[in-house]
C-alpha cells in the first residue's frame, strides 16, 4: 500500500474509533446533568447515586474520547498536509473555533465537576455539567460545519494567485444546508446512543435484582455501611439506606427509553431531510447508496441485494416501489439519477482542472460499501427504536420485573447499546466513503490531499502504533466500564454537604 492508502486507512481507523466515544459524551453529559439537577432540586439520595454512578461511566468514556481527539486535530497536518494547504483557510477556522469556544468549556468544567463535590455550591456544581454538555454540542456544531463544507463547499473562491481555496462568507459555511441537517442528525443520534446505554445499564441491573433469590433481596445492610464489595452484582442491593434500587433502575430504564425514543424520532426526521439534501448536492452518493446505475423514474428502494453491485450482476431481492424517489426528492415518482449518467456528467464538468480530474478518475465511490453501510445504519437505528418501545412497555408497572428473567433478555440487553452505537459508525463510514473520490466535493480529489513528503513507512509506523494502542485501550476501557457498571448505584456513598465554613482537614469527596 502506498502512503495515500495507508493515510486513508489511518483516518478511518482513528476517526471511527474516536467517534465511538463522542456520541456517548454528548448524550450522557445531558443525562448526568439531568440527574444532578434532579438531586439538587429534590435531595433524593437515589438521584445523587445515579448522578455519581452514571458520572463515573461518563468519565471513563470521556477520557478515551479526549485522548483520541488529540490525534484528530493533528492528523490533517501530518497525513493530509496538501489538503490543509489547499483548504485550510476555510477548514481551519471551525477547528479553531471549536478549540477556543468548546474544548476549553468542556475540559475546564469537567475538572470542576469531578473535583467539586462538597467544595462548590450545589446549584453551581450542577450547572458545570450543563456547561460541559453545551460544550460537547457546540463542538459537534463546529466540527460538522467543517465536515459539511467538504460535502458541499460554499462561501469560498479559488484565489487565482496561489490556487488555494479562500473564505468569502463564513456565515454561509456555518449555515451550509448540509450542516443544517447533519448537525441535528448527529446530535439526536448521540442522544439516542446515550439513551440506549442508560436503558441497557438499568435493565441489566433490574434483571440482576429480579433473578436473585428473594431471600437475598430483603437483607438490610447496616445503616450507612457501604454496600459494595459483596461479590459481582452486589447481592445485598435490594434495600440499603432507604433507597429502593429496583425503583431507581426502573425509572432510569424509562428515562433512557424515553430519551432513545424521542431522539430516534429526531433521527428519522433529520435523516429523511438529509437524504433529500444529499440527492441534491451529492447525487452520486445517493446513487451509490442504492446501487442505482441507470437513471429511473420512479425509483424503487432496494432493501436487500446480492451480487457485486457493480451494475451488472446485482440482484435486488426486495424492493419498495417509488420509495427511493420519495427519499431523494419527496415525491414518489421523481427521477433519481443513476451512477452512469452522473459519471459522464462529472467527466465533462471537471475535465479542465488538474485538481479534479485526470484520465483515471471515475468519480464513483466503492458502491458495496455505500450500499451496505447505508442499510446497516438504518437497520440498527430501527432496532434501537424498537428496543426503547419494548422497554417502555415492560417497565410500565412498579414491582418485581419477573418478565426480565428469561435468558434471552440477557443477550437483548447486552446488544441494546450497540444498535445506536454501531449505527453511528456505519453512518459516518457511509458519509465519508460515499463522498469518495472527493476530499472536498467538486474541489479536491482525496488523492491530491495527502502529505506529499510523508513516506509510506512513516504512515505505516503511525498506523501500527495507533492501532495497537487503541486496541489495548479498548480492552482496558471495556474492562473498567463493565466493572463500574456492575457495581451500580449501590456502590456510591452518602451525598456530600456543601458548607461555607471550611473544615481544613475534612477529606475530599473525590480525589485521584
Amino acid at each position: 500500500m502506498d502512503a495515500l492508502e495507508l493515510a486513508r486507512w489511518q483516518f478511518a481507523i482513528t476517526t471511527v474509533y474516536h467517534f465511538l466515544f463522542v456520541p456517548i459524551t454528548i448524550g450522557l453529559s445531558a443525562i448526568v446533568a439531568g440527574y444532578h439537577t434532579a438531586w439538587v432540586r429534590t435531595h433524593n439520595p437515589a438521584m445523587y447515586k445515579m448522578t455519581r454512578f452514571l458520572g463515573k461511566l461518563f468519565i471513563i468514556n470521556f477520557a478515551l474520547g479526549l485522548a483520541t481527539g488529540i490525534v484528530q486535530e493533528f492528523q490533517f497536518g501530518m497525513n493530509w498536509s496538501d489538503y490543509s494547504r489547499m483548504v485550510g483557510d476555510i477548514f481551519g477556522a471551525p477547528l479553531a473555533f471549536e478549540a477556543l469556544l468548546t474544548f476549553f468549556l468542556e475540559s475546564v468544567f469537567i475538572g470542576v465537576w469531578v473535583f467539586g463535590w462538597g467544595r462548590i455550591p450545589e446549584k453551581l456544581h450542577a450547572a458545570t455539567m450543563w456547561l460541559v454538555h453545551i460544550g460537547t454540542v457546540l463542538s459537534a456544531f463546529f466540527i460538522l460545519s467543517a465536515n459539511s463544507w467538504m460535502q458541499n463547499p460554499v462561501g469560498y473562491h479559488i484565489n487565482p494567485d496561489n490556487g488555494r481555496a479562500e473564505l468569502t462568507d463564513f456565515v454561509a459555511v456555518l449555515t451550509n444546508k448540509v450542516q443544517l441537517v447533519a448537525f441535528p442528525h448527529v446530535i439526536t443520534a448521540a442522544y439516542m446512543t446515550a439513551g440506549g446505554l442508560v436503558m441497557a445499564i438499568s435493565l441489566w441491573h433490574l434483571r440482576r435484582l429480579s433473578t436473585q433469590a428473594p431471600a437475598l433481596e430483603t437483607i438490610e445492610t447496616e445503616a450507612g455501611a457501604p454496600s459494595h464489595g459483596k461479590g459481582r452484582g452486589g447481592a445485598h442491593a435490594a434495600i440499603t439506606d432507604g433507597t429502593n434500587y429496583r425503583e431507581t433502575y426502573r425509572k432510569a430504564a424509562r428515562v433512557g427509553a424515553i430519551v432513545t425514543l424521542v431522539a430516534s424520532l429526531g433521527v428519522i426526521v433529520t435523516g429523511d431531510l438529509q437524504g433529500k439534501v444529499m440527492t441534491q448536492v451529492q447525487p452520486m452518493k445517493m446513487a451509490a447508496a442504492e446501487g442505482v446505475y441507470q437513471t429511473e423514474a420512479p425509483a424503487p428502494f432496494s432493501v436487500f441485494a446480492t451480487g457485486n453491485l457493480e451494475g451488472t450482476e446485482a440482484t435486488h431481492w426486495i424492493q419498495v416501489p417509488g420509495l427511493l424517489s420519495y427519499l431523494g426528492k419527496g415525491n414518489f415518482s421523481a427521477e433519481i439519477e443513476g451512477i452512469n449518467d452522473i459519471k459522464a456528467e462529472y467527466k465533462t464538468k471537471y475535465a479542465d482542472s488538474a485538481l479534479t480530474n485526470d484520465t483515471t478518475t471515475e468519480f464513483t465511490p466503492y458502491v458495496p460499501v455505500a450500499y451496505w453501510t447505508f442499510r446497516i445504519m438504518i437497520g440498527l437505528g430501527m432496532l434501537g427504536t424498537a428496543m426503547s418501545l419494548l422497554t417502555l412497555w415492560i417497565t410500565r408497572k412498579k414491582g418485581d420485573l419477573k418478565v426480565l428473567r428469561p435468558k434471552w433478555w440477557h443477550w437483548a440487553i447486552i446488544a441494546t447499546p450497540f444498535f445506536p452505537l454501531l449505527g453511528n459508525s456505519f453512518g459516518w463510514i457511509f458519509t465519508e466513503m460515499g463522498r469518495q473520490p472527493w476530499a472536498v466535493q467538486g474541489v479536491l480529489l482525496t488523492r491530491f490531499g495527502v502529505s506529499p513528503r510523508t513516506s509510506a513507512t512513516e504512515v505505516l509506523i503511525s498506523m501500527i502504533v495507533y492501532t495497537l494502542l487503541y486496541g489495548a485501550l479498548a480492552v482496558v476501557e471495556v474492562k473498567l466500564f463493565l466493572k463500574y457498571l456492575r457495581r451500580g448505584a449501590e456502590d456510591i456513598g452518602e451525598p456530600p454537604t456543601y458548607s461555607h465554613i471550611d473544615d481544613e482537614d475534612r477529606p475530599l469527596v473525590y480525589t485521584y
Partner: protein
Amino acid sequence: MDLAVLWFILIAVLWIGYFCLEGFDFGVGMLLPVLGKSRLDGAAGVADTERRKRVMLTAIGPHWDGNEVWLLTAGGATFAAFREWYATLFDGFYLALLLILVALIVRVLGFEYRGKGETAAWRSGWDKMIVFGSFIPALLWGVAFGNIVRGTPLRIRENELGQGVEFAGSFFSLLNPFALVGGLTTLFLFLTHGAIFLALKTDGDIRHDARALATKLGAVAALFAVVFLVWTNLLRGNTGSWILSGVAAVTLLAALAANHVGREGWAFVGTFITILAAVAALFTALFPDVMPSTADPNATLTIAKDHGFYAANSALTLKIMTGAALVFTPIVVAYQGWTYWMFRKRLTTKHIPGVSSAPERVEA
C-alpha cells in the same frame, strides 16, 4: 496592525499559555516517582507513598485537562491563521509529533484510570504512563521549538496544488545539539515549575521535599536556559529577544530565591514569568519568519511580504478569527482562572479519603 502580525502574537500567546500551564503539570507528572516516594520505611512507607502520589495527582487533577486545551487551540489557530505553517510543521516533524501524541494519550488515561483499579500493579503501570507521557512532551516540545527557531531544511516544491513549502530533512536531522539543549531546557524548566507548584499546593512532607528539590532542579534549568537562550540570540537574536531572555534569567533566579525562603507563591509567579519570557524570546527572535529554511531562503515561511514564502491565511479568515479571539480569550482566561481560585486550598495526605492519616509535619 497587520492582522498576520497580530496572529503571530496570538499564537505566541497560546504557546506561552500552554507551556506556562501544562509546564507545571508535566513537571508534577515526571516527579511522581520522586516526590511521591515516602520517607517512611516498611508497610507505613508503602501506604504513605500511595497517599503522597494521590495528593500530587489531585493537586493537578482539576487543571491538567484545561491546560492541555491551550495546545489544541494553538494547533487550531495555526491551522486557521497560517495553514502553510501548520501543514509544513506537522507533516515535517511527523515522527516526533507522533511520539508526543502517543505520550499525551497514555497520560490522559493514566490520570483518569489510575485510581479506578485496585491492584498495585495496575496503579504502578499507569504511573509509568504518566511519567512517560509527561517526560516525552516536556523534552520534545523544546526540541521542536529549537528546530523551528534554528531553521530546518525546507524547500519549494511544485505539484498539482501549485507551489508549496516542504520539510526536506528527517527525524534525525531534528536531533541537533542546539535543539537538544532546547529540549533539556524545557524539560528542566518544567520540572522546576512542577516542583514549585507542588510546594505551593501541598503541605507537610511533600511541600518540604518539593521545595528542596525545586532548588536543585532550578539550578540545572538555569544552566540549560542560559546556554539555550544565549545560543538562540547569537543565531538570530534582536534587542527584544535579548531583553526577554534577560527577564527569563532574572525571574528564574528570583523564583529560586523565593522558593528557598519558603515564599512559594512568589516562586511560582517567578517560574511562570520565566517560561513566559523565554517562549516570548523565541517568538521574538523568530519574527517575522515562522519557519526559517536553512536550505533555500525562498522557502522560509514568513509573514513578511519582502522575502520567503508568505504563510498567512486570507484577510477575511484572519479578521473573523481576530474577532473570536478578542471576545473569547478573555472569557476563557477568566473562567479558567476562577477554577484555580476555586481549588486554591493546600492539600495534604489527610484530604485523601479512604486512608487513615499518617503523621504530618506541618510547617508554620
